[in-house]
């Protein structure tokens, strides 16, 4: 417990002392820590929180990789299953081939139990490369730091994209009885930045280095 509190306080200190702050909207800012100010371990701590978000049903249910099937999982469901009604989002990722996601997922967010969530953006599956559902922390981490699989984005661009993309904001404000993604959008962006400044470390990096007999912070 002490180490958790220490980590949180450390993160707060780091975030509060960010060297640069760029507003990217009226609600979130891109906090850039100073180069070299975040240790690998601190970066890994940030990553573990990022993974909590990425693997949460509010995010992972639509990050289904090659599958055209959105998922239903999490506390609102008794079991993990494919989206009901035989929904298939197709290669378009937005259901153009069969029934468009926007048929039910409109600009209004239903507050009713199992009502259709909606945002003022096109409801759709995440890109195929962003394959998170059921994936481990290591697998998602390696995806996110790989330009070939993260939309050729730097960590700053990943964090900035989170601030700009309205459909993602729904995860922290899903309405009704839906469980929101952990932390907050701003905290999540800050964790991405901390992880990035630390060199985008992934949990298996440590194992790899230990196996090589290399000392790693």
């Amino acid at each position: 417990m002490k180490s958790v509190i220490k980590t949180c306080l450390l993160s707060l200190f780091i975030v509060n002392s960010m060297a640069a702050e760029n507003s990217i909207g009226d609600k979130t800012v891109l906090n850039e820590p100073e180069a070299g100010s975040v240790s690998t371990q601190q970066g890994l701590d940030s990553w573990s929180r990022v993974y909590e978000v990425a693997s949460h049903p509010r995010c992972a249910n639509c990050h289904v990789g090659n599958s055209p099937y959105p998922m239903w999982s999490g506390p609102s469901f008794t079991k993990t299953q494919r989206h009901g009604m035989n929904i298939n989002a197709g290669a378009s990722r937005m259901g153009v081939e069969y029934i468009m996601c926007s048929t039910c997922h409109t600009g209004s967010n239903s507050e009713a139990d199992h009502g259709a969530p909606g945002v003022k953006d096109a409801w759709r599956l995440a890109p195929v490369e962003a394959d998170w559902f059921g994936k481990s922390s290591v697998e998602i981490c390696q995806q996110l730091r790989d330009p070939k699989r993260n939309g050729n984005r730097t960590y700053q661009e990943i964090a900035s994209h989170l601030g700009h993309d309205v459909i993602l904001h729904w995860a922290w404000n899903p309405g009704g009885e839906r469980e929101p993604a952990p932390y907050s959008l701003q905290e999540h962006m800050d964790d991405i930045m901390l992880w990035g400044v630390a060199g985008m470390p992934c949990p298996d990096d440590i194992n790899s280095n230990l196996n090589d007999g290399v000392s790693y912070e």
Partner: protein
Amino acid sequence: MEINVNGEAHEVDVEDDMPLLWVLRDELNLTGTKYGCGIAQCGACTIHMDGLAVRPCQLKASEAKGRQITTIEGLGTPDALNAVQAAWIEHQVAQCGYCQSGQIMSAASFLKFKPNPTDEEIDYAMSANLCRCGTYPRIREAVKTAAAKLRGEV
């Protein structure tokens, strides 16, 4: 507010957040569009907004401003049936009939994108429209016939 339904402009005095389905049924008396579940799980209320299928139980009235709304009453007329409506009669699809206007509106929207669908594609497209009577085999056949009509083959 003014909304356009079936090619006509209507002035309605409603709250912005009234479900569009209420506006259609209770304000404009277009009761061909049915209320089923109210949470976009059954498809009974399906209409078209700018030509695409939507569930008006999930839409606020204000979201219809400036859009072209089409209900089952505007898809075709008894004298000039839409191809999907004609196929529905040909195959005698309806049993109790409650879900059928939503089924027809979904099929009409789907066929704009898939002029020659397979059985599997029809099943994917129509599975979000529930039929308690289980008329699914007739729905599938009617969609295929409607597609052939729209392609000018029958």
